[in-house]
């Protein structure tokens, strides 16, 4: 399975993270997105006329939407990451997968503007990003009242992976995560998953390392 990848792209990171969590090996083909704008090259436009990355190739299958890639990886290697049989759960997974597009447009746009000098109305992007974060915070809090730690279920699903990267990287675009305690707890839950993978700007959880042994602590 071949992933056209950019190390700093949160959408590419979704696919790398999902592959790591589900034990799928990817053949990474790095794309010089910045400064080379290789995603707009004839070779890549032939593959994806939209001119975006990631692109996932597996035999005849060519996917250009990251949510579809998450669904494909899960269906292939770890179906427990897909929605179960409960209608509400299936609906919530779809709801948050679609919602993740708003995170890309707002927080992702703010990040590209603030970090890689891409054009955009930074005030509007940040405002839309804050609105999306408030909605996510409320959604996660309601889930916690239902006894569920993740977006659609008590276990993580592809919906969590679709939303996590742009949220975790919001500060890169000048949007603080300080006002959202439930998002921070959820982010910690995602980062403590077995086989979690980091990317630049998303550090691993040093604080989850084993506690140092303290003399006399047995008592």
């Amino acid at each position, binding site marked *: 399975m071949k992933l056209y990848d*950019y*190390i*700093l792209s949160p959408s590419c990171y979704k696919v790398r993270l999902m592959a790591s969590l589900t034990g799928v090996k990817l053949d990474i083909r*790095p*794309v*010089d997105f*910045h*400064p*080379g704008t*290789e995603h707009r090259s004839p070779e890549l436009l032939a593959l994806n006329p939209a001119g975006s990355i990631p692109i996932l190739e597996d035999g005849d299958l060519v996917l250009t939407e990251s949510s579809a890639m998450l669904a494909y990886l899960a269906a292939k290697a770890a179906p427990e990451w897909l929605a179960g049989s409960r209608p509400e759960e299936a609906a919530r997974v779809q709801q948050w997968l679609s919602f993740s597009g708003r995170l890309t447009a707002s927080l992702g746009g703010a990040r590209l503007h*603030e*970090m*890689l*000098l891409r054009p955009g109305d930074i005030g509007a992007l940040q405002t839309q990003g804050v609105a999306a974060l408030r909605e996510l915070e409320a959604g996660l809090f309601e889930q916690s009242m239902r006894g569920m730690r993740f977006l659609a279920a008590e276990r993580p699903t592809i919906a969590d992976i679709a939303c996590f990267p742009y949220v975790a990287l919001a*500060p*890169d675009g*000048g949007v603080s995560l300080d006002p959202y305690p439930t998002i921070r707890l959820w982010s910690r839950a995602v980062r403590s998953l077995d086989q979690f993978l980091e990317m*630049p*700007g998303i*550090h*691993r959880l*040093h604080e989850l390392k084993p506690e140092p042994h303290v003399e006399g602590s047995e008592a």
Partner: protein
Amino acid sequence: MTVKAMIDEWYPVGLLSQLDLKGRKTALMDEPIDVALDADGNARVTGGNGRTLPVRVRYGHVWASLGEPKKELFDIPEADQPGRRFVDVGVVRVRCSPLRAVENFLDIAHFPFVHTDILGAEPHTEVQNYKVEIREEEDEVWATQVKFYQPQAAKSASGGITTEYMYRVPAPTCSVLYKTCPPRPGEWDVITLFVQPLAEDLCDVWPWMALFDDESSMTDLIHFQQTIFLQDRSILENQIPRLLPLDPGMEIPTRADLTSVAYRRWLKRHNYTYGAQLVAQ
């Protein structure tokens, strides 16, 4: 703040490979500038009042000065050495003092914690003794005999090695790093940090490299360096105070911070204080 002493220095303002006739609006020390190609294909930088600024094209970048440079742009002899690959890493904007961006580049103690499993790893956290001097003749800060254990020192490294470093600060917002070159012992890889000060707390960073590496693709080399720098970015944006403190009352440095101490001393000596905090608050 004072702009005066730093106004005659050279600063990076763009990649030569990305210049066009249309031009790009950017800024230098709070002054809006425009960087473009002129009709003859030469780089042209225009200041806020329409005046043409002094320009150099070197190391893949366009350089400009708001004042009257008293010195030529610093030399990197390795830039003319055959066999090296020159890597334009591309701009990254950071909401931090330009001086803090350079100081972070000079620090090695953070490697195991910020660049985990690449430039450092626990428990190899010790910074061994190294030498620091301000070279009077060249008027540059140098740190030499810096050694550090690195799991993956370069794209061309396979497995962990003890890497040797030399750091050089030839201009207030530029640093040049010389580093063990895994495929070619006896030579140094050159990795630079060229910082364009936009404001006292905002900068565009233009990393550039001159490496011996015949294996890695250019994209791999770019991504390796972008990975490292983007790990630093979130740290830099959260440093407090935002301006670099030059008042020694604020902090207690350790031996590992000798390069930073010399850099701050050198800045203070020259009144290079754009982006610095002079009195602890």
